[in-house]
């Protein structure tokens, strides 16, 4: 079971954007899984099952955190540590990243989960549906609607800024 800990941690990290919170959520996921292990059918897909538990834990966490929290972007998460751009580019890039991070924070948590699972965790729509407890069509809709929402938000912002 613990063989999936790196993957679940990466998922939690992408979901909540903070190393310590992600670690707590990963531990919570494995604790819940451990307690429920007895009830798991012998042939079950442990990985998918862990995603489902982790998703529930992350969604609960995000709901609690809500929109109150200011987004503090982890410098290491932005990839700035390895950037070789000139300072003005860095500033512009950091600004964009901060905006994206804020927009992501404002997304409905299920859409965020669906995007992360599809694009960065490499899950199929069937697996996403299982982890979110919805149909495949709904899983697909979560991904596309989430992305459209992100893009729309940026289009609005750039109009405001340049208009």
């Amino acid at each position, binding site marked *: 079971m613990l063989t999936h800990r790196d993957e679940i*941690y990466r998922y939690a990290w992408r979901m909540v954007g903070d190393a310590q919170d992600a670690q707590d959520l990963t531990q919570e996921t494995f604790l819940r899984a451990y307690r429920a292990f007895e009830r798991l059918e012998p042939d079950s897909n442990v990985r998918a099952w862990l995603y489902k538990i982790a998703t529930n834990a992350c969604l609960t966490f995000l709901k609690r955190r809500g929109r109150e929290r200011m987004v503090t972007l982890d410098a290491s998460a932005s990839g700035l540590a390895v950037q070789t751009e000139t300072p003005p580019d860095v500033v512009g890039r950091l600004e964009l990243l901060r905006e994206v991070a804020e927009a992501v924070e404002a997304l409905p948590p299920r859409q965020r989960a669906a995007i992360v699972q599809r694009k960065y965790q490499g899950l199929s729509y069937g697996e996403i549906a299982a982890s979110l407890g919805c149909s495949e069509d709904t899983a697909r809709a979560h991904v596309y609607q989430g992305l459209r929402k992100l*893009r729309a938000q940026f289009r609005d912002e750039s109009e405001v800024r340049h208009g």
Partner: protein
Amino acid sequence: MDKNPRTPQDEKGKLMAWLGDEAPRDSQAEPDPILSALDALWAEGPPEAALETMREALDGWWAGQRLVLYYDSLPTPIGVVYAAVTDQGVVSVDFGLADEAAYLEHLREHHLSKREVAYVHAPERVAPVTRQLGEYFRGEREGFDFPVDLRRLTDFQREVLQATSEVPPGEIVSYKEIARRIGRPKAVRAVGNALGRNPVPILIPCHRVVPTDGSLGGYSGGGGSKTKARLLALEGVLPGERGLYAPT
């Protein structure tokens, strides 16, 4: 006016291509600043140092959780005998229980610390134990050779059980003798108590320890003294005159 108006169709194609979903052929994967920014935010994942910290914390926590318990059972002349093992060895042998549900309830109550445990019915994991127990009950085996996991016991309990495990079949010794063998000659009652909490009866033959008065003494295994007498008889130890035993 925008020179290159974006149609919903273009947008969908781009999203599909980025997601790795099947994109329409003519969709151009021209970089989209928003999608690139998402990649910058998430593609790489957490820094290696954070991963390392997490691994250390989780592995330590996991090791502290009390393990998965694997169990199986076998029919014997004294009824169904259940054995439970961890990765470290046998943790419990039980009998005199109505059924598997009663056994699991018994495990929960008697053999576990407060830590969480998962129980798994896993005959293959317990096979060496059940095989040797079967041989023992058929009279084909005297001792057992697999590790016993006594980590949850006190040092004193472990000493008592160690001394008891050295009593061969066909012999019986007194509680007093065990107390003497571990260098605590006055701790006769404590020896009795420690044997009463033997988590692996039969494997550690507490049935071979009896009082000096020739009676059979107590037996905490399922079926009580009757089972104790049965096990001793199986090993060729029968009571003498007036049903009394003669321990060393």
